[in-house]
């Protein structure tokens, strides 16, 4: 019988939780947009940001771009946007 072996070694059990929404609303909120660097991600996110301002009373959108889509958002950017923003929208491709 064939045996499948995980070549990546031991698996680490991590469990994370979503942020509580707790009735937070978009009205007056600041929303970070994290563009993953793929083509048109910026234009799509800008359009989304405009709609959020026009229709949901979002006060400010903060656009940022990752240096490369394959790398996670940097700890510095997580820190910056977490300090500045109430919500974040990461995206999008291809």
């Amino acid at each position, binding site marked *: 019988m064939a045996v499948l072996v995980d070549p990546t070694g031991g698996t680490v059990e991590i469990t994370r939780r979503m942020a509580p929404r707790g009735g937070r609303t978009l009205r007056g909120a600041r929303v970070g947009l994290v563009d993953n660097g793929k083509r048109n991600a910026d234009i799509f996110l800008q359009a989304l940001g405009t709609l959020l301002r026009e229709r949901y009373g979002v006060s400010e959108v903060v656009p940022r771009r990752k240096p490369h889509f394959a790398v996670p958002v940097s700890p510095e950017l997580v820190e910056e946007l977490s300090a500045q923003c109430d919500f*974040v929208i990461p995206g999008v491709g291809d």
Partner: protein
Amino acid sequence: MADGILFEERGIPAAAVITDAFRRTADAMARTQGLEGYPYVAIPHPISSLSPEELRMRAEQALPEVVRLLQEEVKG
């Protein structure tokens, strides 16, 4: 997905947007990142070839789900 989860961990509600060709990858990533079933918004693939007007329409279509994921408490 991983990015959204990093912000969630910091207490910032996030709505990750992907194109629907990446559903499997997104689901696997959420599992790997310790948040199986993390909800996201999937828009039709691809977007790289669309005009600005078509992108605006995609944003319009995605908007209600983005708003829902940002504001509504997720059960389960």
